[in-house]
Structure formats: C-alpha cells, structure tokens
C-alpha cells in the first residue's frame, strides 16, 4: 500500500467515524441510531485494520477484526433485541423514538461542530509532536469522545444513553489507536470485555425500568439524590 493511498483511506475511515457520531445526534429513531452506531463500529474496525496493515503488524489487524465483530455485530445485535422488546407490545410507540431530547437537534448539530473544533484546538500540540497521518487524525477520536459525552448528557431514552456511552468508548479506542500506533491485544481484550458486560447490564436495567415505570426516560429516575 503506498503512502498516499493509506492516507486517503485513513482519512476516509476517520471521516466516516466522525460522521456516524454526528448522524447519531441527528436522527431520532432509536433503530436508526443503532444502525449508525454499527456503521461507526465498521469504520473503527477499518481504522485499526488499516493501521495494522500499514505497519505490517498482524496482531493489530486481528485486534481490528475483533473490534469489528464486537462493535458492528454483537453490540448492535444486543441493542436491537432490547429495542424489539420495547416495541413488541406496540402500544408505546413513543418508546422507540427520542422524542424530546434536552437540546433540540439543530442545536445539537451546532454543538457537535463546536466540540469538534475544540477537539482540534486541544489536539494541536499533540499532532505537532509527530505529524504523521495517524496523529493528524487524532482530533477525530477526541471529537467523538466529546460528542458521545454530549449524547449522554442530552438524550432521554435509556437506549440512546447506551449508545452515547458506546460512542464515548469508541472515541477512546480510536484515540488510543491513532496516538499509540496499536494497543496491546490484552488491553483491548479487557476493554472490550468491559464494554460488553456494561451493555448487557444496561440492557437488563432498561428492561427493568420499563417494567417498573412504563417508560425508559431516565429523567424519571430521581430517587438517586441524597
């Protein structure tokens, strides 16, 4: 693979990665959100595989493929299952849509743009240290971390919250890949396992919430305060 092609492919993957996060903010249908999340998983896997094949490190390619299976396959599958359980009775059609986010969609998109700018501003000194194509793409990872956090703060549905959390984690993984040219297998394995468990637990919690309150709007959970 020549250097030019590698750079273009890397930029494409990173662009898709960031775009998927922005689209998650844009769409209201939970099903669509899960779909774009899966797309982001594919982009992340492509990122890892590209980096691995460029440096001819096949363990990195393996890690990338594993990430792809987990984040584009297993996690979206789990979320879709939770979603179908929600919409099974059909009465609460509201439950499968993010009807009233705390910040509306237009403002969310603007904020995403600002957060991306912030990520680029913050990462500037880091990219100046060693300006390779990978480190130049580093702000994308940071931007996705911030956007994921933003989703967590502003979305009401429990499932949208799960997606926000996973966006955050995707962003962290991407940053790790871009900044360190490859995460050891054991570290990535541990992180992935954590994420999988977290999603399983959250899925159960979502189901319980729906049984207990009839809704998955987490703003109804107010018993946490002292």
């Amino acid at each position, binding site marked *: 693979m020549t250097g030019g092609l590698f750079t273009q492919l890397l930029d494409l993957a990173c662009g898709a990665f960031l775009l998927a996060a922005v689209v998650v903010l844009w769409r209201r249908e939970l099903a669509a959100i899960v779909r774009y999340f899966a797309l982001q998983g594919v982009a992340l896997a492509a990122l890892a595989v590209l980096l691995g094949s460029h440096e001819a490190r096949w363990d990195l390619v393996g890690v990338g493929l594993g990430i792809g299976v987990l984040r584009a396959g297993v996690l979206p599958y789990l979320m879709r299952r939770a979603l179908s359980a929600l919409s099974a009775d059909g009465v609460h059609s509201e439950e499968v849509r993010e009807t009233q986010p705390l910040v509306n969609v237009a403002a969310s998109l603007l904020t995403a743009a600002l957060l991306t700018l*912030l990520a680029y501003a913050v990462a500037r000194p880091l990219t100046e240290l060693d300006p390779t194509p990978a480190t130049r793409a580093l702000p994308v990872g940071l931007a996705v971390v911030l956007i994921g*956090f933003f989703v967590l*703060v502003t979305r*009401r549905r429990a499932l949208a919250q799960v997606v926000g959390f996973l966006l955050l984690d995707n962003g962290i993984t991407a940053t790790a890949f871009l900044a360190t040219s490859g995460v050891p297998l054991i570290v990535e394995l541990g992180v992935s396992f954590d994420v999988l468990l977290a999603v399983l637990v959250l899925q159960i919690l979502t189901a319980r919430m729906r049984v207990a309150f009839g809704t998955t709007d*987490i*703003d109804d959970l107010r*018993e946490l*305060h*002292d």
Partner: protein
Amino acid sequence: MSVIPAALAAAAVLAGAGALAGIVLPYRLRIPAVGVLTAGVGVGGGTAGVAALGGSGWAGTFPGVLPLAGAAAAVDALAGLFIAVAGAVVAAVAVYGIGYAAGHGPHGLGSRTAQAVLPPFALTLVLVPVAASVSTFLALWELMALGSLLLVLAEHRERASVRQAGVWYAVMTHLGLVLLLAGLALFAAGAGGETFTALRAGAHTVPPAVRGLVFVLVALAFTSKAGALPLHAWLPRAHPEAPSPVSALMSAAMVNLGIYGLVRTGLDLLGGGPAWWWLGLIAVGGTSAVYGILQAAMASDLKRLLAYSTSENMGLVLIGVGASGLFAAYGDRPLAALALCAALLHVVNHSAFKALLFCAAGSVLRSTGLRDLDRLGGLRSRMPVTAAFFAVAALGAVALPPGNGFISEWLLLQSLIHGLAVPGVAVAVVLPLSVALIALSAGIAAAAFVKALGVGFFARPRSDRAASAEEAPILMLAGMGLLGAACAALALVPGLLGGSLDRAVGATGLPGGGAVSGGGLEVRLTGISAALSPVWVVAALTVALMAAVGLPRLYGRRRRRVNARLWDCGGGAPTPRMAYTATSFAEPLQRVFDDVLAPEQDLDVTPVRESAYLVERVRFQRRVSDRIEHRLYEPVLRALNTAGQSARRLAGGSVHRYLGYGFAGLVFLLLALAVGW
C-alpha cells in the same frame, strides 16, 4: 548497638504483637495480653527516653518506610524527655487498664477494635518525638490522632454523646493537621529541605514574613492539640467521653506532644523569632489558664473538670514557653533557659498528676457508673485507696506545697519575676500580668480541686450508687500506685531531674548551663540567687500539720468528753441532700465571675391551680456553657450549614444534570488547555 534504637525497636515489636493479640485472642486472654504488651511498649519508650536524657543521642534514616521521602528519626535530650514521660505514663496506665477493662465485658474498651488499637496508639505517643523529618512527623502525628479517635469512640454503643464527641474531635484534630501541614510545607519549601537538619540549617534563609506565617500556623495547630484556646473545644468533649485509661493517656501524654511540637519548631527549628510571636503565645497561654480553670471550677462532671484543668495546665506551660522565647528574643539566654526548664518540668509534673487523677476518676466511674459530682460523695470510706491517690494528685494539681505542681510553678514565677530586668514596654506590661494570671489560676485551681475532692469523696453519699461503691481491683490500684509514686518523687526530689532538664533545654540551642541544679534534695537556680528544698518544705509542713492535729488532741484528752446530739435548730437530723453539692460549692465563685461565664438560668414556678400564691413546684436549672465556644464556633458552624444546605440544590437527582456537570467540567478543562497553550 546503643540503647535507644534497641529500646525503640523493642517497643515497636511489642506494639505489633499487642495489635495482633488484640485482634486474634478471645476476650479473657485479650485484655491481660494487650495490657502487658502495651506496658512493654511504655517500658521500651521510657528506657529510650531516659537514655536520651542521660546524654546519649541517636539518628537514623529508613528510606523504604515512607514513599518518596523515606522516614528519618533522631533522638536528642528534648525528644528524650517527652519520650520518657509518654513511656512512663503508658506503662502505668496499661497496668491500670488491664484491671479497668477486665470487668467491663467485651464491649467498650475491652472490644477487639479498642484493644487492637491501644498498643499502636501507645507506640505513636512514644514515637512522635523521634521523628526527624516533616513527612515522618506528620505521618506519626496523624496515626496518633486516628488511634486516639478510635479509642475515644470505644464506648459509642453506650452513649450517644460519645459519637458527638468523636465528631468534634475528628474535625478539630484534622483542622489542626491541615494547619500543621500548611505551615510545615511552607517552612520546608522556604528552607529547601524537609529533614529537621535541613530545616534548622535553612531557617535563616526564609524571609521574616514567611517565618511569621509558619509560626502562626504551626502554633495554632500545636496549641489546639495541647487544648489551649481558642481551638480547645474538642478537649472538654473527648476527654470525658473516652474510657478513663484512654483519657489518662490523652491528657497526660498526647497533649504534651503539642508542647513538644511548639518547642521543637518555634525554638529549635525556626531558631526563635521576634517578640510578637512569644507575646501572642503568652496571651494564649494566660487566657487558657484562667478560662480553663474557671470552667473546671464550674463543672460538675468529674472528668470534664479534669479535662478543663488540662487546658489550664497547658496554658501555664505555654506561658513558660512564650516567656522563654521572649527572653531569648531580647538576648537574655540564661533566663530563657530557666523559663523553658520550668515549662518542661511542669509538663512532667502535669503528666504525673493528671494521669493519676484520670485513673482515680476512672475507678470511681467504674465502681459507681457516675461522673456527676452532685450525685457522688462519701467515697472516702468505701474507696479509701482511690481517695488517697486522688488526694495526692489533687495536691499536685493545686500547685501548693507539698504537691509536685508547686515546684514547677515556683520556677515559672521565678523566671517571670526576674524577667523584669529585660528591657521593653511590652515585656514590662506582660510579665507582671502573667504572674497575676498564674496566681489567679492557682487560686481557682485550689477551689476546683477542693470541690472535686471534698464533694466527690468526703461528706455522705448523695445517691444509692455512690453509697454502694466498691474499691477498685488490685491491678488498677497498682497502676495508680506507680503514678502516685512518680508524683511523690517529683514532689520530694525534683532536683534529680535537674541535669536531664538542662540537657533537654540545651537541645533547643539555649545554653543549658545548669539553670536548675542541685542534688537530690534541693533545686538551686544558678542565674538568679534562689533555692528551694522541697524535702525541707515537706518536712516543715508535716511537723506543722502534726502539731496542729496532735496538740488539740493532747490537750483534749485531759478534759472530760460528753457525747451528745448536735443541736439541729429543731430541723431534724441533716440529710445528704443538705450537704454541699458541686454546683452549690461553685456558686459563689460563679457569682464573682458572672460577667466572664455568663451562665444561663432557667426558673420555672408552677402554682397550685386554686391559688396563685401557693407554689406547687419550682424548677431551677442553670447551665454554664463554654462561652468562647458559643461565640466563636457557632457562627462558623451556622455558615457552614447554610453553605451545605444551598449546595444540596446542586444535587437535584437528575441523572442528566450529574452527567452535565461532568461534561461541563471536561469541556471547561479542555477549553482552558486550548486557550492557555
């Protein structure tokens, strides 16, 4: 290998074994095993301290013990004095504690936690003066505070007030730690090193303003530990609520370390300072002395009385330390040495009699379950040995001959009176004033301890529990006996301590030079022409007393004696309710000091329903609350409470809001990074 490290290592090993024994052993074996091992810690510490007082020193570093800085240890004569005092108190109180905890059941002091914490706490009391770097000192200081806190809380199941006292103590001691940390960190940063050697060498390079700030911070922390105003509020709460052996350890060994820290940093490490430091210290000491003993005279809780008396005695010691620094600041170093000598001797004396007082109060409490003097009385016949020990210790506390407190207060007064030769207007005003304050506090102390002894132990019992009191078991009496012997030795032959005290004073950089000398039978002051021979004082007093008691008897034996009933004005035989109680005894004194104490009175008269002129019931209630505490602490507490209540609004319960705080924090941080780069 010299004696000091060996003795300290033995103490540490015994403390470890004691903690282990406290955790592992069952209740019956636990208390004697822990008691014996703790006594061993005390003996080890005492041996090391006496060796250091004898003139040998030791220094060592342990790089692996604390992270980053490592631990540093050094023992000189000044440290040796405090180690020896702490060791002796620990040894005697540990023996007493075996008897005390044995009858109490597996709760309170006999519990697994308390017994496991006791030996390490005793060890930290011995080891704090050994520390020779800021980090070592702070680590041991904090361990000591935590150990004492756990022990104060030992009886938390039995009384709710214990928990409240624990909260007060925890907050105040950590406030002190924060001040200490800030002060010593500032000092270490200025001096360019954190070992005491580096601090001593670099102290003169620190700018004067920083030195002043360091002294104020550190002095606040250390005077708080010593129980002096204004940060004294923990002491009258924690000392009464702790189990009595713990009160004795805290009041006789732990508060001393506040004085140690002050002498070590103020006189030794900072190398003395301008006059205003020491004038401030004398002011704090004088106020604490008078205010503490006034509160003690008003208290009807026996252990609260003793706790306030600790405040008073530490105030006197602070006057001595302050006078010493003041004389040194004006260049009169022999007089400074004498004042410090008096202060240190008073520390030793106070430890002896206060440990004994708390132990005696503890055996009263253990036997009757009462601390309220108003309900005690008549214990002299039921608990004769305890009463005798209490009397011996009270004699020391009132600072009258032949008590042991007399010698040190006499020395202190000598140094203050002869200090008038020192120039300066402030000195000319402050020294006579402090002489007056010491005299006043000694007078009120006499009233307070006459009350404690007379109302508590003489007269007739004023409650059933006081009437059915029993003498303490033999081990408690043995522990008190050791302390009583120490009191008597300090009262009769304080001259034996002369050389050791000189070396301790010399360790601060002041010339020892025999400020106090004389053989066993005499105390002679070399700087001033004054001498005192306690043995002769005691002998003269004994002869006078025997004459006063014996002559009337001899005279009376010749007369015919008729036993008849006392004329009672037709009122019937006097009942115990007619006797003086602690409250009524203190009442005249309280009237005199009405403006200072501002007691709260509450009179509630209920008339009979038929007639407003016939009274059915009168309820009278009076409370003497700690006025300084009210004025100083309550506004602060109220402000904190208001702030806390308004901060609760931040936590509304919405998950989104909590997440939003995190998000806003992160974005703010990144923005600051991006802009500030």
